[in-house]
């Protein structure tokens, strides 16, 4: 069954549509893989095999009846536990939502089901998407498939780990400050933060509404483009959704040509705090792009160094407001309702018991930043920095087609290393945050293993608002050339290596 697990989503969709394999076989193989390896990886919070197999049978019946199949018919997907789906619990990695069964589907869930995707289950995440390691989950930490002692990134560590452990060929996540791209970087997978408003937030549990962006996760660039084209587009139920057609993402993958493109290297993202092995693989990828005909130039974005500080004021401010909805009244946990305690006391006790440490830190920082007397100095200043970062992007995109940087300054770090040092944890998102503040799109793809430690290094491409196709054009060109040089993709190399032997999908068992 390992061939079905190693196949990408595009390939599986083709095999199922042509009848070479059934959707049931594909789904069963992935459920078996989850049963075999997820006690080590811990990517999933919830798996519903019965439902997945029933959906697969429905796809097979549709095909047998000659009905038109969706573009991802029968392809399994791992869903970050932040998207609502009827019949499956949505916890957002929080104890305050333990066991919550949402009464409606997110728009993206509806689009996936309409495309005949098979949802295998819900993946682990940092509580309410707050973190860069998945250690802030209220349930358990997820382990990096490359080395189980390391973090898989976060907040979407479960989705990225499920891909790298060959438990699913596709996953979805949300990216508020890097929660799709940073996990992709440290697991050797591909992750895309679409243009803000290009993917619907309806039915996605809100963290910071002006920044939250759902997006695709995959093992290769083409699969990410295919998934993006399925989940993207205008949604009248999301008030900040962009009413414009998606660019031709699959056409961009076909084109895969960078000749004549101007690629700007952000000069502020490098040096102190960046691992030498990360910088080395990044420079080598630039050389490959240059060889393919791109023009590489250096671009300074002087205000990017203030992005992290602005983000850690704007995001907690929005968090403190958004998470007020968890008030123990209509759904979720309720503590201390003894007939004597007031409603306020029940809220105090419930939120004290139900939220984890990072959620509490951020709610309190947001409450402080928005409080009278501090509002102008903190929240007001951060909003001004947001303007300066947008101006840096605007000036840069006058000169270049895209900007590039390492996705994150280091490779995966050990579980436990940064849990008690929030600032060190926050720095994992140093290079990803500017695109959330400015709303433009960005992609991370693997560009090799760090010579320091043999772990995956991610390469970030940032493109202007609504130019998501450029991400895929460059991503597909770079990926194809690297795979040619290596002879196999990084994840294929991993699957066939001794370190990946426990996944039972490679030549070494």
């Amino acid at each position, binding site marked *: 069954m390992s061939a079905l697990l190693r196949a990408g989503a595009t390939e599986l969709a083709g095999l199922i549509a042509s009848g070479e394999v059934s959707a049931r076989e594909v789904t069963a193989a992935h459920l078996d893989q989850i049963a075999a390896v997820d006690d080590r990886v811990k990517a999933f919070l919830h798996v519903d095999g019965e439902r997945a197999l029933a959906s697969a049978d429905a796809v097979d019946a549709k095909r047998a009846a000659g009905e038109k199949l969706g573009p991802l018919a029968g392809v399994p997907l791992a869903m970050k536990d932040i998207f609502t789906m009827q019949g499956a619990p949505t916890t957002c990695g929080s104890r305050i939502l333990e066991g919550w069964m949402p*009464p409606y589907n997110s728009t993206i869930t509806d689009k996936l089901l309409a495309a005949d995707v098979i949802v295998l289950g819900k993946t682990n995440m940092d509580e309410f998407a707050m973190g860069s390691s998945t250690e802030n989950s209220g349930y358990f930490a997820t382990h990096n498939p490359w080395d189980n002692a390391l973090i898989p990134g976060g907040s979407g560590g479960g989705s990225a780990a499920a891909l790298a452990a060959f438990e699913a060929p596709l996953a979805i996540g949300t990216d508020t400050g890097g929660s799709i791209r940073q996990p992709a970087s440290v697991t050797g997978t591909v992750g895309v933060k679409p243009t803000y408003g290009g993917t619907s937030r309806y039915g996605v549990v809100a963290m910071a509404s002006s920044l939250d962006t759902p997006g695709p996760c995959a093992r290769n660039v083409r699969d990410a483009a295919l998934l993006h084209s399925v989940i993207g587009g205008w949604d009248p139920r999301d008030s900040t959704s962009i009413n414009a057609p998606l660019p031709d993402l699959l056409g961009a993958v076909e084109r895969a040509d960078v000749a004549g493109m101007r690629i700007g290297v952000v000069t502020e993202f490098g040096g102190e705090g960046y691992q030498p092995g990360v910088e080395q693989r990044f420079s080598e990828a630039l050389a490959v792009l240059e060889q393919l005909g791109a023009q590489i130039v250096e671009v300074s974005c002087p205000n990017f160094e203030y992005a992290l500080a602005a983000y850690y004021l704007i995001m907690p401010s929005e968090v403190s407001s958004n998470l007020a909805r968890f008030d123990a009244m209509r*759904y979720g946990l309720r503590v201390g309702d003894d007939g004597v305690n007031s409603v306020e*006391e*029940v809220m105090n006790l419930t939120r004290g018991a139900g939220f984890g440490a990072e959620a509490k830190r951020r709610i309190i920082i947001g409450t402080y930043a928005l409080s009278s007397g501090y509002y102008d100095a903190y929240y007001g200043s951060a909003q001004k920095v947001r303007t300066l970062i*947008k101006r840096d992007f605007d000036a840069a995109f006058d000169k270049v087609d895209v900007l590039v940087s390492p996705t994150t300054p280091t490779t995966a770090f050990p579980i436990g290393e940064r849990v008690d040092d929030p600032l060190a944890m926050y720095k994992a998102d140093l290079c990803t945050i500017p695109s959330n503040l400015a*709303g433009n799109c960005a992609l991370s793809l693997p560009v090799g293993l760090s010579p320091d430690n043999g772990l995956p290094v991610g390469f970030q491409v940032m493109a202007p608002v609504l130019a998501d196709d450029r991400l895929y054009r460059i991503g597909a060109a770079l990926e194809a050339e690297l795979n040619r040089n290596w002879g196999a993709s990084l994840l294929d190399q991993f699957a066939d290596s001794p370190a990946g032997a426990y996944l039972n999908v490679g030549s070494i068992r």
Partner: protein
Amino acid sequence: MALTTGDVGRLGELARIRLTPDELAHLAPQLDVILQSVATVTEVATADVPPTSHALPLTNVFRDDVVTPSLPVAAVLAAAPATEDNRFRVPRILGEEA
């Protein structure tokens, strides 16, 4: 400026989060370090820079005023911590003397 455990406790009450003495002792120094770090935004946020609250320009839009189905009452109440007479049951909202 140093954030005391008293300050953090007060912020916790404002945010309706009851914090234990251990949590207060742990959180106060962490929050202090974070706030000092993020205060660097004031270095470049000069008076001539307008604030941005949203990344993309948005204009208000209106939809037609048509009735669409709501969720069934039973489906919504199914997730409630407590219900009574087909409604959410909540703890008392007024003080003892009211």
